[in-house]
């Protein structure tokens, strides 16, 4: 759902210049914070976690803040909902899906005094920040677990859409698995939806029918994990801890934890220190959190914990060079011993060994 870019960074830098040189922000006594969700708060995944972040703001700031949310907003018709928040006195508006990028920018232009925060986008403005999390760090860990836990040697992945964020997640998952089991095979099925429990479950069943015994997913509901549980197979929670949906199947979960970021940003508006910026936090920033490791032998658990610590401390980068594409060509290493942020955020290739063709 996101990307960063040179253009974006340039826009952001220009924005910062404008903000610091221009308007003087005033501290406020009380603010209203609004949220736009792409799914229902009850998806127990993506939108649910953003709502957990909203509640964290209320808890942390008490009567200094009032929060509002609009759920299940279709991306093609979101401009009005965003504008409704802007014109009803909200000081800070979080739009929490990639598809809200252009509408957020359009509304932000008309309401220069309102601050906007767009999740997973790459275009910024003086009053529009962007933020996202390095989910691929968690993907590498669950890939290693999957590689160890699979008995059939074939693991599966339910993807939402073949956009860079999802593709990077699949690659990190596969690289993790490959690092502990060089012969591991990966099968991918696309659900073509962020939230469609029936489709997600069908995709998971299709994978299980093909001999997959550990499933990961990059969609929003617990359906794929539940499908694994029903067949006595294993899986992972996505976006939130989904253990209660599949106590026997969930090995761990990659939790999106927006709470700290949301509280910080709301405080910044209260203090008058809010600035347009770009944030991409991972395990070390606490934006990505691993749920307790369960349903696995102690040695696998130990390995997962060590990998988590290594990524957190910066010792391990899931995309350390060399990275070899599916067709055998090596990717140019633009980062410091690993792929650069831009390369990860614009990723549109599978790494070598993935048994699938990336839809183009």
């Amino acid at each position: 759902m996101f990307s960063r870019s040179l253009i974006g960074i340039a826009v952001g830098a220009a924005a910062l210049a404008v903000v610091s040189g221009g308007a003087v922000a005033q501290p406020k006594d009380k603010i209203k914070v609004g949220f736009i969700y792409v799914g229902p708060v009850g998806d127990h995944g993506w939108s649910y976690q953003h709502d957990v972040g909203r509640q964290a703001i209320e808890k942390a700031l008490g009567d200094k803040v009032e929060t509002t949310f609009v759920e299940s907003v279709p991306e093609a018709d979101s401009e009005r909902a965003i504008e409704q928040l802007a014109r009803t006195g909200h000081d800070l508006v979080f739009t929490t899906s990639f598809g809200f990028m252009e509408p957020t920018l359009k509304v932000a232009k008309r309401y220069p005094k309102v601050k906007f925060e767009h999740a997973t986008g790459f275009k910024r403005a003086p009053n529009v920040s962007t933020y996202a999390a390095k989910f691929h760090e968690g993907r590498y860990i669950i890939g290693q677990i999957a590689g160890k836990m699979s008995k059939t040697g074939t693991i599966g992945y339910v993807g939402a859409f073949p956009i860079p964020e999802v593709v990077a997640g699949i690659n990190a998952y596969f690289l993790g698995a490959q690092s502990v089991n060089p012969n591991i095979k990966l099968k991918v099925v696309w659900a073509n939806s962020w939230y469609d429990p029936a489709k997600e479950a069908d995709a998971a069943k299709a994978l299980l029918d093909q001999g997959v015994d550990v499933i990961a997913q990059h969609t929003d509901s617990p359906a794929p994990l539940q499908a694994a549980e029903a067949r006595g197979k294993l899986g992972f929670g996505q976006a939130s801890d989904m253990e209660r949906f599949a106590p026997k199947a969930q090995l761990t979960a990659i939790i999106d934890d927006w709470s700290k970021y949301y509280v910080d940003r709301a405080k910044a508006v209260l203090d008058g220190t809010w600035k347009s910026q770009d944030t991409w936090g991972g395990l070390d920033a606490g934006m990505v959190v691993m749920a307790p490791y369960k349903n696995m032998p102690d040695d696998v658990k130990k390995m997962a914990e060590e990998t988590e610590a290594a990524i957190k401390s910066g010792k391990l980068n899931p995309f350390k060079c060399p990275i070899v594409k599916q067709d055998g060509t090596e990717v140019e290493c633009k980062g410091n011993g690993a792929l650069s942020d831009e390369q990860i955020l614009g990723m549109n290739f599978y790494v070598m060994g993935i048994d699938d063709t990336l839809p183009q």
Partner: protein
Amino acid sequence: MRFELTPRTSVSPVLRALAPVAAFITAFLIAGFVIWLMGRSPVAAFEVYVTQPLSDSWALQELLVKATPLALIAIGLAYCFRANFWNIGAEGQYVMGAVLGSWLALTTHGTEAGFWVLPAMLALGMVGGAAYGLIPAFLKTRFGVSEILTSLMLVYVAQLTLDYLVRGPWRDPQGFNFPQSVTFDPAATLPPVMEASRVHYGTVFAVIAILVTAVVLGRTLFGYRLRLTGDAPRAAHFAGFSARTTTMAVFAISGGLAGLAGIGEVSGQIGQLQPSISPGYGFTAITVAFLGRLNPIGILVAALVVALTFIGGESAQIMLKLPLDLTQAFQGILLLCVLAADALVSYRVRLVTRGGGK
């Protein structure tokens, strides 16, 4: 014991006109009761849902923006439904219209193409929608395939075609592999009717389509032909009306208007192609067409009412923190009440205590 519906021999026009009003009042009473059960004030809810949007110029404009594609598609569907053809695939025709029209916008992107681009895009939008609508029409007339099935299934084909295009050949090369096209040039953008408004010229097209349809359906032989085909196909056949031509014509008109709505939204509203360009307008328009009883003016009113429930629903979430589910339930209640009121006006309900049963 059972209920039986018997047609009324004569229905007073006053009663018929009052039926929707009664339906609305009933729907509001039921919804109000539910809101009261939730411990909220039904009066405040009514104000947020209805009074505020209708007394605020921003909300009124948003109402027009939202009602435009609904009215355009629904007015086209009225042709089909009047003739008793079930075009369920307006969503797909909308998408294909948008795709064909956008093709021109993307081909001329960055060139010095002149004023002709926009009209040509709109024309292509109509052609795309009409051509796509003709597929189920052809399958029906040639092979007798149910148009309900084919038109509906073609929706998915259209959506996936769009999906393929924005992920593949039409993807913005500067867009970091995100599935969206470039942003349209000003020459390919449907302008707003007023400066700094979101209401674009699509709204004008919708009004024109409604007026023209009112004349066509009410005052022309073609309109009579549709009614006859719908109400008494055999009579239409004996009158020398070819069922094949009628089928093709209504699907082409309906698809064309859906296509126009599609290119209008993409060019006037969204400004680029992306995987999702409609929050289900093509399906909501079916509701609108029936709420408006397939009558052009009725459809205009129905489109505005349905748009109002969307906008009111968002306001209710923001102002009253009422859940979205309530808005959706309210839309359902409203439709049920309107259809029930219609049935009660046309039919008499009798309680049969003996006889008929086992």
